[in-house]
């Protein structure tokens, strides 16, 4: 800076003031991504920190700052920053449960063709060797429609399960006492049906993959529920029960 005249200096000061006001506005827009409860308490404070850590000539938030604020806002919106560690791990397990269900669903959809082929082959073996063409066709059509119904039911059930996991994860992260009760009931129901299926030798469990998936999901559910009812989780739900 070679221009030391009073006019030049006043220009640079007002320049700096306007760039800092511009920067502050940009930070405020980013902070809008945070949940209302956080903004009510912490907006002025976080803006002060952002401005204090900004470079002297900075005009807009850096990419790293934007990413950092958006990540922080996302974690808070999911309720993952203010819940105790036990609830945090339980919520993560529930998202994992949803992921396992998604993998199950995708596997099911990808193997529709081979399931159809296998049941068709099994049905053909069951048909009497001297059966007429018409009878064979009739049996095959019946088997095919049964398989379609079974697959459709499976797809619907798995989709509902994915949605259930996601809703329970989200609501438990928020500390909803109702969501905790919901998680316990869902887990108990799932465990009961899985164990019943196992003891009855349910034909749905004949292939190894769905069996492994069911047991994995059941274990994830039980672990999540244990964390949700752990001693450290209670104050979080209690504080939300009185707030609502």
């Amino acid at each position: 800076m070679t221009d030391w005249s009073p006019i030049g200096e006043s220009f640079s000061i007002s320049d700096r003031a306007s760039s800092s006001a511009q920067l502050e506005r940009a930070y405020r827009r980013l902070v809008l991504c945070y949940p209302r409860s956080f903004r009510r308490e912490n907006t002025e404070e976080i803006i002060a920190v952002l401005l204090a850590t900004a470079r002297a000539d900075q005009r807009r938030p850096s990419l790293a700052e934007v990413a950092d604020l958006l990540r922080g806002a996302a974690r808070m919106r999911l309720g993952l920053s203010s819940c105790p560690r036990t609830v945090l791990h339980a919520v993560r397990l529930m998202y994992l449960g949803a992921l396992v269900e998604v993998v199950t669903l995708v596997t099911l959809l990808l193997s529709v063709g081979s399931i159809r082929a296998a049941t068709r082959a099994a049905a053909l073996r069951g048909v009497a060797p001297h059966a007429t063409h018409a009878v064979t066709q009739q049996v095959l059509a019946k088997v095919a429609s049964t398989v379609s119904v079974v697959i459709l039911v499976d797809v619907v059930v798995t989709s509902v399960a994915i949605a259930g996991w996601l809703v329970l994860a989200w609501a438990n992260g928020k500390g909803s006492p109702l969501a905790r009760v919901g998680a316990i009931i869902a887990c108990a129901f799932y465990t009961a049906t899985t164990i019943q299926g196992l003891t009855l030798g349910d034909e749905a469990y004949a292939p190894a993959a769905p069996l492994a998936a069911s047991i994995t999901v059941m274990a994830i559910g039980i672990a999540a529920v244990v964390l949700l009812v752990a001693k450290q989780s209670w104050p979080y739900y209690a504080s939300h029960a009185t707030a609502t």
Partner: protein
Amino acid sequence: MQEATFLILTALADGSQHGYGIINEVSDISQGRVRLRAGTLYTALDRLKADRLIDMDREEIVDNRLRRYYRITPEGGQRLAAEAARLQANARAALQRLNPALGVI
């Protein structure tokens, strides 16, 4: 305990600090290696408040800007002490094993 959490509690161990103060202290303690960003800091503070390891201390207005001070709770002090002891024990074991075998130290 994550390193950022450990460093924040350490920054508050000998007295209350406001947000920007914590960032500077953490940078000093880690010898400039860890520069906390505002989003990360406030996510961590939210967590620590929920776990009752820190508390709000007081507020000040400096240059028209809000400064909110945080302090460590007795429970936070205990957790930090336990974690520090664990890290120290691990570090001592590592140094002991390195020393005769490799002549590193």
